[in-house]
């Protein structure tokens, strides 16, 4: 077995390294991705080994980064773009939504857009404004994009490989508060499809669905609930667009109850779509409405309040109680 224990950030780093090694068309672009290795060191050492032509420190202009990445993709490159923090993707939003997402359809399939946009996202690290947001729904609503988020190092490694190999643009949300969490990564394992959800814990009483940073929380919730004699199933969605509804549906048909957990605001967050669609699919199975635990409809608060804002063990357990009370 080639498995090796490593932190999530390191797993992405190694995955990028592998891509740079195996395909000369792969490029890394972004602010401070070179000598600094990115503010989270995800690109650490890559410029040193692959040169400034392939690991490119760009001007401080996100629209420019994504716009030139589109041009490079048109020329046959496969750029992997880093956005430094979630809150700084918006200057690039126009290029992502009106150009990157639509180019393939606009050209009737003649042009491919193999661009990966890496976005460290989410809260829990005590940062200042714009450094803790979860804007994934704003991308998932947009056709032409694929949106994924790994929850652990092994997925981080493999999903990055798959994202880079995809001929569609992939928005790759990195759970920044889990960057330092370690897990076994088997670099020779043959991974399942990029967009498949995975049942990470089996249970019979209720299903918790989450992705990225909230998967770990949901596992902790399941542990806590088990102590109270409740058997929770945890589904790691892994992909936010598309969502693997079949896997959720199978789980809900068994447990008859579903709670979706994400850091993003509940209102029009991914949980809304999951609730709506699973309710359609499982109308006669559900014993309680699909509940959602997430951020509030307010700007992400200052760091000293983020624990109040973010879903935590108690809030999810509270939702579990409410669901089971139906």
């Amino acid at each position, binding site marked *: 077995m080639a498995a090796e224990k490593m932190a999530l950030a390191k797993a992405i780093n190694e995955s990028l390294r592998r891509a740079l090694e195996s395909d000369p068309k792969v490029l890394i672009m972004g602010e401070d991705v070179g000598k600094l290795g990115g503010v989270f060191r995800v690109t650490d050492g890559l410029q040193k080994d692959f040169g400034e032509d392939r690991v490119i420190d760009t001007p401080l202009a996100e629209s420019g980064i994504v*716009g030139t990445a589109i*041009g490079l*993709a048109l020329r*046959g*490159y496969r750029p992997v773009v880093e956005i430094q923090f979630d809150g700084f993707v918006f200057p690039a939003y126009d290029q992502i939504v009106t150009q990157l997402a639509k180019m393939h359809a606009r050209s009737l399939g003649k042009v491919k857009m193999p661009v990966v946009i890496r976005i460290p996202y989410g809260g829990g690290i005590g940062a200042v404004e714009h450094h803790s947001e979860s804007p994934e729904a704003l991308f998932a609503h947009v056709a*032409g994009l694929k949106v994924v988020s790994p929850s652990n190092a092994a997925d981080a490694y493999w999903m990055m490989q798959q994202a880079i190999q995809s001929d569609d643009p992939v928005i790759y949300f990195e759970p920044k508060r889990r960057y330092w969490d370690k897990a076994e990564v088997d670099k020779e394992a043959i991974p399942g499809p990029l967009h498949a959800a995975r049942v990470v814990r089996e249970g019979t009483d209720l299903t918790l669905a989450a992705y990225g940073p909230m998967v770990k929380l949901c596992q902790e919730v399941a542990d806590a609930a088990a102590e109270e004699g409740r058997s929770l199933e945890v589904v790691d969605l892994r992909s936010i667009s598309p969502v693997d509804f079949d896997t959720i549906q199978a789980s809900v048909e068994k447990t008859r109850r579903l709670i979706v957990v994400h850091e993003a605001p509940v209102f029009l967050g991914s949980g809304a779509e999951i609730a709506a669609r699973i309710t359609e699919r499982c109308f006669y199975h559900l014993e309680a409405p699909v509940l959602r635990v997430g951020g509030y409809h307010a700007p992400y608060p200052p760091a000293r309040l983020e624990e109040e804002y973010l879903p935590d063990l108690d809030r999810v357990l509270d939702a579990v109680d409410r669901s089971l009370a139906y």
Partner: protein
Amino acid sequence: MTESTAARKPRRSAGSKAAGTTGTKAAGTTGSKAGTGAQRTTSTTRTAAQKGSETELVQLLTPEGERVGTAKNSPYAEYASYVADITPDELRGLYRDMVLTRRFDAEATALQRQGELGLWASLLGQEAAQIGSGRATREDDYVFPTYREHGVAWCRGVDPTNLLGMFRGVNNGGWDPNSNNFHLYTIVIGSQALHATGYAMGITKDGADSGVIAYFGDGASSQGDVSEAFNFAAVYNAPVVFFCQNNQWAISESNEKQTRVPLYQRAQGFGFPGVRVDGNDVLASLAVTRWALDRARRGEGPALIEAYTYRMGAHTTSDDPSRYRHDDERVAWEAKDPILRLRRFLESAHHADEGFFAELEAESETLGKRVREVVRAMPDPDRFAIFEHAYADGHALVDEERAQFAAYQASFADAEGV
């Protein structure tokens, strides 16, 4: 021309109107030099922006059809050298390109009137800027147009009827950009300037020696993306030529609403040269673009060309220019017509005879007829095309919705007993 009060009026009337000629230059090293005064700078640059006087233009063919600028001591001699040995045959070719492009354009406008197209964006008046620059490109160069570059498409060998699909509403521009190295039309103003720059960065990485040309309008120059493209191109020394067709109008807004100084000057602040060329002069447009592409291909980085021209018609067929501009402006520009001046030259230099013009007239008719026929025969797309190319590698939700859509469609078939 319409003038923006907000832009013109100093908040205090005194002092800021003194004349001067060194305006922007004074700011060249460390701002306007002490003593020469800031007030001068302001009013001067303003004046320059408003005049856009002919003398600033690179011109090689006058409206009267006279070749100029060829003298060794001409300020434009370097550009002129790029068309010094142009042959009569090539000149006739440029003329033919312009005439056929104009004819195609007129046909498309007519087809819109007849309801065959939903919209048309005419290039009327901009033929020289487009044919001149388009003919300066090499086969391995890559072109990023906006939505009005029908003449450039012509030069790249794109079948003109391909351009009509998006205006008819059957696709969003579905030609293969890589067949002719002519990218799709881009409607979101300014976006393609960055794509062009990225593409050019890729050329550099490949060690290739082709160039890229990005088209956009005077209005587009205001978009942040265009400035970012200028900066990326400069920083990476990318082989990209920015070709701004300043047709004086962005829908209803005249140049003064977009910029305080002539647009070609924008380049300088990013560290590469900018040139204003007479965009109604096909020779000058050809020469300056050759110069710019040449230096780009040689690894000397980007350049900005401002082709000073005029949108003779409406912004699009949906537009009504009488609401915002006077007809005499158009009339004045008609005297500088790009086709007329080349014809005058061809005739006076005896480079073309009646037979040539007659033959071209016939060719025009044939083109018009073909365009009409092709458009009228253009089928509506299959309804499943909605889902067809949303993704390259497939997407479960699209599959699900396509299946639902199919079932829904089938329910009609059932109902109709088919």
